């Protein structure tokens, strides 16, 4: 168990997000301590990405608050959140497709510039130094994430695994205190995942606290200090990997004890119609797929 510090790095309190009749995130509270790796897991559509968007100010919660180092940071602009050190990556691979890998990361150093925009326009000394610093730091980040060899390739030509890593590299360039990684290992084979796990740990060891969403259960169990489990927008469990694996509710959610889940759905999505049965089925099947991965 992690000792509870007086002020966690980030705390979300009673976060709720509604999209019309759908409650994507329902009264979720948890905290992450500095230096932790916290995973958020849950079946498809559980509200994990929405939670990330709320935490990084990309979405405004319907109710509830987000605190960063004790300061209320709810519903500010995303770039302000980034300036404070809350940086997210994207579930769908999101990079600047027409730029080289290196340029992607150089641009992302924006927050570290000392020169002003006019300074860059007129090419002042500070601006020149900034550029130089950014390039060095970007090369360093790329080397660290194993992208050193492809740094001069246009991003759109890179294979999927490299793109996931590039997404993380962009996040790191912003000098985060808290990095929110949305499915960083998606689409990686087990070898790539093992390597990526090592990298994420390394990032944490550099002093960056990490919250990640991931479907790869064995990766989650290996990497996490603690795990928060969401199902239908609600937090159903929180604890260490060992504790979560034995949690009744979690096993239920993943195995999808059909009768009970049916009730859950009816309770929460009253407005939804028959067409949704397909979604439920696919949810249930992906849950089964999920639990098979648990070591």
């Amino acid at each position, binding site marked *: 168990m992690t000792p509870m510090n007086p002020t966690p790095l980030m705390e979300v309190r009673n976060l709720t997000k509604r999209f019309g009749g759908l409650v994507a995130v329902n009264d979720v509270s948890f905290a992450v301590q500095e230096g932790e790796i916290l995973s958020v897991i849950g079946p498809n559509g559980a509200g994990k990405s929405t939670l990330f968007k709320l935490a990084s100010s990309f979405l405004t919660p319907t109710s509830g608050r987000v605190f960063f180092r004790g300061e209320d940071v709810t519903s500010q602009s*995303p770039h302000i959140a980034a300036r404070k050190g809350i940086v997210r990556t994207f579930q769908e691979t999101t990079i600047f497709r027409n730029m080289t890998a290196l340029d992607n990361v150089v641009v992302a150093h*924006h927050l570290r510039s000392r020169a002003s925009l006019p300074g860059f326009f007129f090419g002042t000394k500070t601006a020149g130094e900034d550029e130089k610093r950014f390039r060095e730091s970007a090369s360093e980040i790329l080397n660290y994430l194993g992208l050193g060899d492809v740094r001069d390739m246009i991003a759109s030509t890179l294979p999927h695994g490299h793109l996931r890593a590039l997404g993380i590299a*962009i*996040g790191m360039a912003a000098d985060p205190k808290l990095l929110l990684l949305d499915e960083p290992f998606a689409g990686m084979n087990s070898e790539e995942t093992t390597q990526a796990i090592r990298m994420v740990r390394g990032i944490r060891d550099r002093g960056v606290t990490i919250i990640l969403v991931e479907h790869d259960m064995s990766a989650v169990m290996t990497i996490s200090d603690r795990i928060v489990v969401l199902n239908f927008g609600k937090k159903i469990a929180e604890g260490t990997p060992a504790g979560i694996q034995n949690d009744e509710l979690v096993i239920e959610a993943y195995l999808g004890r059909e009768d009970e889940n049916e009730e859950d759905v009816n309770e929460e999505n009253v407005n939804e119609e028959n067409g949704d049965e397909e979604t439920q089925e696919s949810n249930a099947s992906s849950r089964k797929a999920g639990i098979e991965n648990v070591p």
Partner: protein
Amino acid sequence: MTKVKTALGASLFLLVYLVLIPWLFREQPYRLGVLTTASVLSLISAGVWLMFYIGRINMGQGGFALVGGYSAAILVSKLGLSFWAALIGAGFITVVISVLVGLPLLRLKGVYFSMITLSLTETARLTAQSFPSLTNGTKGILNLPLPGALKIAGFTLIPDFASIDKHFAFYFLGAFLTILGFASLYRIVNSRLGWLFRSLQQNEDLASSFGVDVPRLRVIALAICAAFAGTGGAFFVTMQQSVYPATFTFQDSTYFLLYCFLGGLGSVWGAFVGAFVLFLSFEMLQGLNQFQPLIYSLIMIGMMLWLPNGLLSIKLPFSFNFFSKAGGPACKPEEEAGQP
């Protein structure tokens, strides 16, 4: 090596633009006037090009140019300012208006932004008609004086246009403003600002995830765009010595887009090349004037089909780095991609 090439290209271009052309047309004031107009149209189009660069299609540049034109005319004729003060004042007023208009409008993405800007030119025209005490309504403001001498600390920098050959004077002033405009654009695109603009064009969410103040940068881009329009409009109106509500029409706004398309969105010089090629071709084919909109539309469609990255994307047999270098990777706006 590339630096030498760039310097060589730039010198060659300046030699043609500032020496050869005026010398060739020294006895043809009409032709010189046409070339001056091409310069100022390219300057105004440069603003549209910059909006393309952040992934926005600005269909209202004619409106901003009209604001600049009227501002200059009013500052000169009603307030008695010199042309030089009015030129700067007009640029300033246009920028202020663009910021006021841009703050709400730039929240709209993709086609929605374009649709709204579509109406800006009409709005500007109707506004010009609705305040006759200031703008003389549909009659317009006529008989604007030629630019007087520009003196700094008693030293005459530029002589009174009435005392010299005004066609040459306007040609050189237009060329100077155009060079200044495109040099600024080149610097913008090749400095960090350019990187940030490209990041907006490609993915605004990703840009804000690493701390870019996306709304502010969008407004900055529009303000620069409007500065080009305002200055260009003020210059054009002074050259014509008059301004009407129809000095810049909706049609002009779409032509500015077309110049950018034709020249190419991937190169800083796209708007310049596009404006000169298209505008001058039409001047040479006078008889076709009545078909101009039709032919422009056909060119627009043809460009999209066969040459989506513009004339400057055509590979010349010798590599002329000066043109192809600046814009970075091909910059087709992807504004619709991934927007809800």
